[in-house]
């Protein structure tokens, strides 16, 4: 068989297939993905300020709460005669050193990009914040309707220009 005959045979096959296309469901699924992605991006721009504020709030409230009792105890011991110390509530006894608690294991998702076209990354910071669980849905993660209002931990990668570039979600087991 000559090469021309082969080409003609292939032409016939191409003609037969020329009307074949992906079914409409593929377009529907892709458009849903497209909307999810870009709706998430709009939310992200708005949420950026909120995230930054949340980061500040989280750090402000989280840090002093971590070791409140030792501070009270120290004050009581060093200044036993001061009025403040006299009226200070009795610190809750610290639990005796028992078997060491196992540190909860941190589980993180992959990073989800928050920008399509990002300037080159030079340096940045990772901010641990709390966000509504609905933010997980914005990046395509499944969240039950009744848990949309829950707060979840997230790490936000902020670039040198101050823009949030990516987010990942954190849970503890």
């Amino acid at each position, binding site marked *: *068989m*000559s*090469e021309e*005959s*082969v*080409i*003609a*045979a*292939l*032409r*016939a*096959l*191409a003609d*037969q*297939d*020329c009307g*074949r*296309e*992906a*079914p409409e*469901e*593929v*377009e529907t*699924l*892709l*458009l849903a*993905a*497209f*909307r999810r*992605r*870009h709706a998430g*991006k709009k939310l992200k721009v708005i949420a950026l300020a909120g995230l930054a504020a949340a980061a500040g709030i989280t750090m402000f409230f989280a840090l002093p709460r971590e070791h409140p009792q030792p501070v009270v105890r120290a004050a009581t011991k060093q200044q036993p005669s001061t009025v403040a110390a006299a009226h200070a509530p009795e610190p809750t006894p610290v639990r005796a050193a028992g078997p060491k608690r196992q540190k909860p294991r941190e589980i993180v998702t992959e990073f989800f*990009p928050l920008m*399509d*076209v990002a300037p080159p990354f030079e340096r940045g910071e990772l901010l641990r914040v709390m966000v509504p669980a609905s933010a997980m849905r914005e990046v395509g993660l499944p969240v039950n309707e009744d848990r949309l209002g829950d707060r979840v931990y997230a790490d936000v990668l902020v670039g040198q220009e101050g823009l949030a570039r990516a987010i990942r979600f954190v849970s503890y087991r």
Partner: protein
Amino acid sequence: MIPTDAALLEQALTGAEDAFTALYRRRQGGVYRFALQMTGSTAIAEDVTQEAFLALLLHGTRYDEARGTVASFLYGIARNLVMRRLQRRPGGDVEITEECAGPEDLLEDLTRRESIEQVRQAVLSLPPVFREVVVLCDLQDSSYDEAAAALDCPVGTVRSRLSRGRAMLARKLRGVACAGRSIECPKSL
């Protein structure tokens, strides 16, 4: 004025749904047929089409107009997805015909659907590196340059693989023709 693929892609990446839809509708057929002709499976072709356009959404910023057309970029993505699936398939490719001497006029039989399906099977039986060139250049009407960009290889490689692919097909189709006409193949072949 009809916007170019590159312009549509650029708009789609900034969130223009109309642009993404237009680009998808313009290019999905080619991607779907490429995957179908490479694998012979409509299910895989659908998956590959969907994944290729998703990848375009996610990684479209990597497209470089200087390196080829958006269509080539898409074919390149689809080709990688197809190759991954072909590697996962157990048994690999199966030769469907034996080579033998036969008539030169297979073309007249091509009016029959059955014969066209035999051509499809012959294409599917080609080794993937030859199959992809035949599918792109002969079935998808891609130019050598476009095929080279999609396959990330020199144009000369595309030419030589296409030539070898067609030669393999000629032998396979000769076999189909003589099998169809109950012509005994000479034992020397």
